[in-house]
């Protein structure tokens, strides 16, 4: 399953204004970044999971967390090997492998990464890209042109991957071995596919631009959008709560 894919629903999270969702995620991330306490980071991860469970997104949030744990683990090892403060914890001969300061900052960093990435990725689970862009045009007066480019880019990601798999299948049918474990060999096999893929994608983008042009794309103004994306009381509450969260994490 695509981790960034939209998951339709009617929950209180889904119903928030897209601009609110974006701002709330941003504030949530700020709370994660300003905190220097591992417990606060863990608390923020836990809080996010609970909110998701109530919004019916529990499964999705857990599988995201699992994926993020891998990233967190990698960052943990890197940080562990590079931070040299505190007293040495593991030594081989006279060579110090890691220190107490390293363990602390590595734990903090990997928790912080998980805590910030989780809400960002959940944003895509509860928001259609078109709604996000539409609301930013309507409410924040972002030029429609940019919003259109972003939605188009997102639209092309699945097209691109499915086309890539088609080509890969065709190559496999001709007896090319893709299941090789050797990463260099794999790269050597994939690179020749990228060029024709890019060419055909560029052609598609061009045809899309043509279609947009003859349907009056250049006439678009902020006021012509059909959907209104009004703010409601829930949006205010949501933002207020995230601000409180920032204050708490700054104080603790």
């Amino acid at each position, binding site marked *: 399953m695509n981790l960034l894919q939209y998951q339709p629903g009617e929950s209180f999270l889904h119903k928030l204004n897209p601009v609110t969702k974006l701002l709330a995620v941003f504030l949530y991330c700020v709370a994660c970044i300003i905190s220097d306490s591992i417990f606060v980071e863990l608390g923020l991860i836990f809080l996010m999971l609970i909110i998701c469970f109530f919004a019916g997104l529990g499964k999705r949030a857990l599988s995201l967390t699992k994926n993020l744990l891998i990233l967190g683990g990698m960052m943990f090892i890197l940080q562990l090997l590079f931070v040299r403060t505190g007293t040495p914890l593991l030594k081989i001969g006279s060579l110090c492998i890691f220190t107490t300061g390293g363990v602390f900052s590595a734990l903090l960093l990997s928790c912080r990464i998980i805590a910030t990435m989780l809400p960002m990725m959940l944003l895509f689970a509860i928001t259609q890209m*078109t709604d996000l862009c539409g609301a930013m045009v309507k409410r924040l007066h972002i030029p429609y042109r940019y919003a259109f480019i972003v939605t188009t880019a997102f639209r092309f990601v699945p097209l691109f991957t499915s086309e890539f798999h088609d080509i890969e299948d065709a190559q496999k049918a001709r007896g090319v071995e893709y299941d090789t474990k050797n990463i260099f060999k794999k790269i050597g096999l994939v690179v020749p596919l990228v060029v024709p893929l890019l060419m055909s994608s560029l052609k*598609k983008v061009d*045809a899309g631009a043509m279609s947009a*042009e003859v*349907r*009056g794309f250049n006439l678009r103004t902020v006021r012509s959008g*059909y959907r209104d994306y009004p703010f409601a009381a829930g949006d205010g509450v949501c933002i207020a709560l995230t601000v409180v969260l920032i204050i708490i994490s700054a104080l603790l």
Partner: protein
Amino acid sequence: MIQFEDFSFRYKSSEAFALQGISMTIENGAFVGIIGNSGAGKSTLTYTLSGIIPHHFDGDFYGSVKVNGLDTVEVKPEKLAQFVGEVFQDIDSQMVSSIVEDEILFGMENFGVPHDEIGRRLDSVLDMLGIRDLKDRQISSLSGGQKQKVAIAAILAMDPEIIVLDEPTGELDPASSIMIFDILRRLNREFGKTVIVVEQKIMLLCEYVDRLLVMDAGKIVFDGRSEEIVQQVPLFKNLGINVPRVVELGQQLTAAGLYHGAIPLDLDQAEKMVKEVLADAGV
């Protein structure tokens, strides 16, 4: 009204002319069908109507094309888009949204159609094409035929005076193809829309269009009423385009001296012919 005056076009990257020496007029309210082999220039001809040629495709442009009196070289495509709506041949790449409803809204939003009018038109095209249940679906999850209906709905929602469709039934089953042509006929007869449709199914063209253009190698080799194709069977044979089987049958029966009436063009007429022949034979 659309006027071609000694129009020729050659794509920048190619040696041969894609269209050559086109001179014709298409009156308002006409229902025109275009048929021809692959590479004959049918799509290129449709591009000239929406201004994509010369504004999007570079090349050598000779003569003139005027749509509602506007020279397509001089006005921008968005100006032409106010009269001309075009459904392109490549269904996938003409989509601009990820959701069906957004795709249909796109043109109307761009033109600043008033809010309640948008809602009305949206409902009307969804019902007209029978795709109401697809409204909230991801376009990437639709079948080819469903996408084709969405593409047509998106153009009809813009309510253009001139509707151009490039092989709109390519992905559709026979029943849906007939549905599309019924819609086009209604738009043509009830609302006076000019309809120009590229179509490979000769039977549909014979039944629905008033005027048929046959293209070959960048030229219009036949331009007339669809009934006239009865006299053009050799031309069609030469180009490898199938004439309706009922026409062939009618000609064979006439040649055999069994039938003396008008050559049938559709199934109803064919049925009458066969009944007549059988009655004459005393069956």
